[in-house]
């Protein structure tokens, strides 16, 4: 045989279907930049994700459709967007789970400046992240081999190590939408990851930073962040733990 290695078809037999995407667009280069809705219809297969449908639009219908993406399997955090009214990763949302009989609305995540179509300016988001000192702060006299840490100590902060900085949480938070000054759940999650790491010695500083008026106390436990997190991190729980740590420290 020739080397036409079998390229496996989609698993099982899932018929293809048509799906309409209703995408919020914005072109900064237009004469009068204005956001508008545009609809595209493409055909899709059972295992296709929203990202696949968007690629079909970009590659076959309108090359100017602009969005970020990289890994295509929910690990790089590039493509958080508001799909049918909720923040999700386009590459992790299967079309068949969305009721494709109705148009699927796709908008940029909320609360960050829109740059073009679905692309937003991520700088304010990363600035908050950088502010919580998201790095291990450990004593000078490091051991020559690894620092010891028990499996339980390691498990204490496991959940928050999963964060991919996709911003789905922060831009789903009603408090963040109000003025964009709130540190936001993602920054708190990344502070949590170190505050509860037994090897870290910078907890006090981080708690002090998050004790700010734009810090944890602005959280109103609305759980949008927890619902939005594509990594399944219990974000609100992490925030609650940080609050508790601060209270224990203050009293």
């Amino acid at each position: 045989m020739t080397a036409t290695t079998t390229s496996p078809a989609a698993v099982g037999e899932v018929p293809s279907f048509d799906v309409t995407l209703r995408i919020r667009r914005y072109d900064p280069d237009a004469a009068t930049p204005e956001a508008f809705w545009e609809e595209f219809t493409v055909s899709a297969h059972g295992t296709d994700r929203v990202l696949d449908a968007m690629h079909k639009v970009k590659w076959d219908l309108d090359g100017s459709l602009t969005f970020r993406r990289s890994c295509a399997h929910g690990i790089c955090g590039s493509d958080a967007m508001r799909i049918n009214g909720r923040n999700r990763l386009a590459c992790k949302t299967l079309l068949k789970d969305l009721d494709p009989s109705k148009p699927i609305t796709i908008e940029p995540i909320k609360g960050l400046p829109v740059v073009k179509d679905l692309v937003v300016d991520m700088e304010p988001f990363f600035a908050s992240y950088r502010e919580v000192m998201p790095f291990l702060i450990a004593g000078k006299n490091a051991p020559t081999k690894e620092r010891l840490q028990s499996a339980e100590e390691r498990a204490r902060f496991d959940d928050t190590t999963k964060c991919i900085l996709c911003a789905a949480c922060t831009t789903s938070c009603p408090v963040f939408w109000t003025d964009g000054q709130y540190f936001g759940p993602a920054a708190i999650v990344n502070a949590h990851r170190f505050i509860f790491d037994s090897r870290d010695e910078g907890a006090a500083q981080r708690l002090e930073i998050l004790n700010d008026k734009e810090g944890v106390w602005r959280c109103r436990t609305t759980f949008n962040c927890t619902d939005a997190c594509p990594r399944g991190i219990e974000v609100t729980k992490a925030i609650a733990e940080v609050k508790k740590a601060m209270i224990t420290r203050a009293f």
Partner: protein
Amino acid sequence: MPEAPAGTLYRGREGMWTWVAHRVTGFLIFFFLLVHVLDTSLVRVDPEAYNAVIGTYKNPIMGLGEAGLVAAIVFHALNGVRVMLVDFWSKGTRYQRQLLWGVIVVFVILMAGFLPVQLGHIFGGE
């Protein structure tokens, strides 16, 4: 940032809508409290004026308003308890939805106990 045309409403889930309700009820109660202190102050000014103002509370429309206010307070208070459980109970965040159901059940029970009495008082004739 461009002023975009109306986007869709964020489809938050129970947690978000509960927060909205908590905020709205807190807001309402606050203004009622302002008014309530003011009218009660009339007792210091003149008993008859007080009775006249309080009299207006006794008409059915105000009575219904009063019922609404009680509903607001009951919800705000019960949800306040839920918020505190979420804050302080280690499993609170995981069971926040169940807690909300608890809030709703207790709310319904309390209101079921209160409403007939209140309505009875308002419409129950002299």
